């Protein structure tokens, strides 16, 4: 028997400064863990554009798949070039937050509606039964 799939159907695109926070900076990891979100890391701000551009292109391709399948996708922080990369693959502007503190980030995540993908999978499972 395979263990139960435990995915949350929630994916946050997270600016590098919140995943690898500087001393005293806001650390998103414990908040994402507690709220049960997955993370897609955005390229570090100090990467040269020739390095960041293909990484952003890959992020956008992956986000397109999550978005199309009804996973909740949001942006935490900002990254130059992200909106253009998402637009290039047809993903509309995502809800986002530039969190002033941990409380603001917790509040933002807790106010999200249930992901469509989770609801539709539950409906499909119920129909089968």
């Amino acid at each position, binding site marked *: 028997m395979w263990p139960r799939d435990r995915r949350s159907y929630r994916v946050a695109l997270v600016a590098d400064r919140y995943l690898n926070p500087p001393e005293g900076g806001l650390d998103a990891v414990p908040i994402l863990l507690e709220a049960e979100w997955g993370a897609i890391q955005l390229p570090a701000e100090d990467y040269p554009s020739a390095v960041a551009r293909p*990484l952003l292109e890959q992020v956008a391709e992956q986000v397109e798949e999550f978005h199309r399948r009804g996973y909740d996708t949001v942006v935490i922080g900002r990254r130059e070039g992200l909106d253009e990369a998402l637009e290039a693959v047809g993903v509309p502007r995502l809800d986002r937050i530039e969190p002033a503190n941990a409380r603001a980030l917790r509040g933002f995540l807790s106010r999200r509606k249930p992901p469509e993908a989770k609801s539709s999978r539950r409906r499909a499972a119920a129909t089968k039964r």
Partner: protein
Amino acid sequence: MPGVAFVAHCMLNQNSKTIGGARCPGIYSPLVDVLRENGWRIEQMPCPELAFTGLNRFWAVREQYDTMAFRRHCRRLASAVVGAIDVHLKAGREVVLVGVEGSPSMGVCITSSDSKRAGLPTWKEGSSELTPGQGIFIEELRGEMADRGMAEPRSIGITQPLPDYNKRTEKARLEAFFG
């Protein structure tokens, strides 16, 4: 001084797993905790399977992904990752790779193999597809680094998907590697 760990995408995002394969809601904390306790910077690699065959993909073995098109896709991803690795190496930081054992793409020492697997995806639970070897993306990534004259980085694979996974043993392995 600790360096930079380039980790498999699913270590930060279990939503990228094949349906049935997510062992936690999002971030895989046993790895992330050890990295952070030991001062490592985290860099997430892309999931080669997610953008190629999507979220509704079937479980697959290495042979099913070993096509020219998938390798080309992996080389494109690897080229971007190696660009980031290069930034850190030039800054004098150690870079390590963290893959996922048993994965057809991200396996470091163990991948999955079955040359006969095809057609309707039904196979016996616990079938013995696990085999020594690396996944296709890891192979292409190492190849890209070699082509650019970079030394092969230390690498480790998370054993969480393997049938004999033991939480305590895994923690000790990670501590020994990153500590």
